[in-house]
């Protein structure tokens, strides 16, 4: 599998990064094309919006904007939601409450699972299609692309919404991270390669000397999508992912 190249069509993309990161970001294409504004989600009524955690808000914001950009219907796409840490910060706060012998908030508990954001997206958009929730360490975005490819092999006429998102890891687990990344969310609307005007090819191979990536893989990919390079190699902790633009 490692040497196989897979192809995906890209219909649209939307990336949000925490506002404070704009000044320190040294990738011009990423800075120019990503959204660094505070999230409002005015398209969701307040009575429903209150259910969204900080993390779900990021995922919802880029998912809805990405689908809107392609003038597609949010109820019809298959979805792959990928997050390395998921609701880590919320889980820490639940464990902390339990440790202090306080009762755990039912809302926090019900939204602490890894697929909470995917579930909320499906409820808000009345999407009854298949959805997958993925976590795969620093390769999370890469495996989300592979899962999207699998879905498109099975349902070639469908579109797949891939949303890869994470909050900055907070204390105390922040101390265990090799590098702290900003909160971000990237959404791509993917199709079979022959049904979109542009797309990407990707292949990957294991890498033995461990690296600490400068950026989450999804953000490095988004920069590549908009810069002038025709190919890029993005290394994660243990894998080298190669991408080629197909125009």
């Amino acid at each position, binding site marked *: 599998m490692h040497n196989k190249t897979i192809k995906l069509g890209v219909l649209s993309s939307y990336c949000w990064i925490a506002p404070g990161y704009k000044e320190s970001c040294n990738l011009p294409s990423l800075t120019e094309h990503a959204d660094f504004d505070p999230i409002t989600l005015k398209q969701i009524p*307040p009575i429903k919006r209150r259910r969204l955690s900080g993390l779900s808000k990021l995922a919802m914001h880029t998912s809805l904007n990405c689908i809107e950009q392609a003038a597609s219907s949010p109820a019809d796409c298959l979805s792959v939601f990928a997050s390395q840490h998921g609701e880590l910060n919320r889980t820490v706060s639940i464990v902390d409450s339990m440790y202090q012998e306080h009762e755990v*908030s039912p809302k926090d508990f019900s939204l602490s699972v890894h697929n909470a954001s995917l579930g909320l997206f499906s409820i808000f958009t009345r999407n009854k299609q298949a959805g997958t929730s993925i976590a795969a360490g620093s390769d999370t975005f890469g495996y989300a692309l592979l899962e999207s490819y699998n879905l498109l092999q099975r349902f070639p006429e469908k579109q797949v919404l891939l949303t890869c998102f994470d909050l900055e890891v907070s204390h105390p687990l922040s101390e265990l991270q090799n590098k702290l990344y900003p909160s971000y969310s990237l959404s791509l609307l993917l199709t079979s390669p022959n049904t979109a005007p542009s797309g990407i090819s990707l292949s990957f191979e294991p890498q033995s000397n461990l690296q600490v990536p400068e950026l989450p893989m999804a953000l490095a990919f988004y920069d590549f999508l908009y810069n002038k390079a025709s190919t890029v190699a993005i290394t994660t902790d243990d894998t080298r992912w190669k991408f080629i633009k197909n125009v």
Partner: protein
Amino acid sequence: MKSLETEIKEIIIDSLDLEDISIDDIETDEPLFGDGLGLDSIDALELGLAIKKQFNIKLDSDSEESKKHFYSVGTLASFIEQQRGAN
């Protein structure tokens, strides 16, 4: 001094993140769940926890009685008064 009803309305807004709703929007006798304010089962648990904490009262989450007490702000206020009298 604030009435008990007003205090309950404040707890509802704070504990359930109802950022766009004010105390005046919540009718004392209208249903909290379903047709009225439109709260759901997770709200019921969250509100139960907040009421327990604030007024230091006991609640039985499974009983039919609890459902009646949580019908509206008015019924909750009577229930809290009654519990306070019992302590």
